[in-house]
């Protein structure tokens, strides 16, 4: 293999490029990134970057020497517009074509927006550094009232950051108890209480009926309950859609992302997919899943790089899904694949102290672990997932 094009230069794409070099690929390596920056870390964008604790200089994913050692050609600020897999060629938005023998699809996902909100000042999405810079600028202009639509992790973290900044903050979600489907009612309730204790106004079980504007700028969020939340800044955090439009006509099997086998190999053996855009077959579940977690991206990178160089699936992604979130000074960590009927037991610490580990057990097996402010016990418990559960 002489040339590999990596489309997407964030965590997943960059990690795959590093892995390709680490296992001996010494050919031409081209990284194509739609943003102007070298790869940077996104998780702080909703947290320390918003509160001012971190700046853009703190975010690069590697040292300059690491970027140099990669010996790659960087096409930054460029977007891939098409993949021609019969030649494994990637067409760029400036009309050039990168001829490659292997392609890594790592184009990530884009936040979903609310229809009709384009061009209205004060309405934000959060994914990129540029998004975060715009949001931070708006949050630090006067003392804006903030409404956040969607109480997933982005919404919850931004709500916590806004409270750190002392801003009037309302968190809106259509469900009665966000995260209940993942964590179970008790711990989803703990997360909700953390918000109220820190002064976040919760409007759960409420749909957004209308965004009010003065013609150019947002002024409030009208809810289905009839209530109007006055707001100068609105963050929309209602999930993401994988970036696959550019792959129409590529011949790749697409669905919710790029469909891959258990080793991140797509329907074309010269093309692998990693990160948020990859919908990877999970033999343990018998289904495919798209996993938007940091560590999934790096683990998939190692697997995908090996399989791409061999043009064959010799390794499978083995990882247990894991994510963390920092909210109101509490570090939440979760690993595994829970189901609503799992039996949940606190095994270390106490829920009221906001420092504990909880086991999720199904048919006598540990299937998931949740921890608040208990990273070492969490790390130990995470290793036991898939094994018979030990009684508390």
């Amino acid at each position, binding site marked *: 293999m002489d040339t590999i094009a990596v489309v997407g230069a964030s965590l997943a794409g960059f*990690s795959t490029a590093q*892995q390709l070099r680490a296992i001996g690929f010494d050919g031409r390596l081209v990284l194509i990134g739609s943003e102007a920056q070298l790869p940077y870390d996104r998780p702080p964008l909703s947290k320390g970057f918003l509160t001012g604790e971190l700046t853009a200089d*703190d975010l690069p994913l*590697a*040292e300059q020497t*690491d970027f140099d050692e990669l010996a790659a050609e960087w096409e930054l600020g460029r977007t891939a517009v098409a993949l021609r897999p019969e030649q494994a060629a990637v067409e760029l938005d400036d009309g050039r074509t990168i001829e490659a023998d292997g392609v890594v699809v790592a184009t990530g996902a884009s936040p979903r927006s609310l229809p009709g909100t384009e061009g209205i000042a004060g309405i934000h999405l959060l994914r990129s550094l540029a998004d975060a810079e715009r949001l931070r600028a708006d949050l630090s202009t006067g003392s804006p009232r903030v409404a956040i639509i969607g109480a997933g992790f982005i919404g919850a973290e931004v709500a916590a950051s806004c409270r750190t900044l002392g801003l009037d903050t309302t968190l809106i979600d259509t469900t009665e108890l966000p995260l209940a489907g993942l964590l179970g009612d008790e711990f989803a309730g703990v997360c909700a209480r953390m918000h109220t204790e820190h002064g976040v106004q919760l409007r759960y079980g409420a749909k957004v009926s209308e965004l009010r504007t003065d013609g150019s700028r947002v002024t409030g969020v009208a809810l289905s309950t009839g209530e109007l939340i006055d707001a100068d800044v609105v963050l929309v955090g209602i999930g993401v859609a994988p970036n696959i439009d550019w792959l129409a006509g590529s011949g790749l099997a697409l669905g919710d992302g790029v469909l891959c086998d258990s080793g991140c190999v797509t329907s074309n053996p010269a093309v692998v997919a990693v990160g948020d855009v990859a919908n990877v077959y999970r033999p343990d579940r018998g289904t495919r899943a798209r996993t938007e977690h940091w560590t999934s991206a790096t683990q998939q990178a190692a697997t995908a790089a090996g399989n791409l160089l061999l043009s064959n699936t010799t390794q499978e992604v083995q990882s247990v899904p894991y994510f963390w979130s920092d909210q109101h000074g509490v570090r939440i*960590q979760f690993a595994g694949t829970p189901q609503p009927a799992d039996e949940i037991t606190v095994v270390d610490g106490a829920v009221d102290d906001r420092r504990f580990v909880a086991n999720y057990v199904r048919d006598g097996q540990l299937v998931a672990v949740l921890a608040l402010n208990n990273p*070492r016990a969490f*790390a130990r418990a995470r290793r036991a997932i898939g094994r018979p559960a030990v009684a508390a």
Partner: protein
Amino acid sequence: MIAVCRTDEIATGESVKFDADVPIAVFNADGEFYAVDDTCSHQDASLSDGFLEGCYVECPLHAALFDLRTGMPSCLPAKRPIRTHMVSVEDGWIYVNVAGQSEEVA
């Protein structure tokens, strides 16, 4: 040299953290004591909270392993190594020679 604590105050697999120029973590890895900068080179996690496996400590956030002997992260994404500090044990006390503060250490 900083006297950190007595050896029996850090059980196997455990750590203590103290403040020098930056926070420093001291680990007991199966009876061997190692001292490294406490803040992982991803900058947002305290390694003294990390899980110890042999002489590797797992960053509690990203699950990257750092070699306590060299400070090198063992997996991607590569970032700079964390500083390691010389540890000595005398009369049951653990002493740490903070790197960069001593004349012998460049």
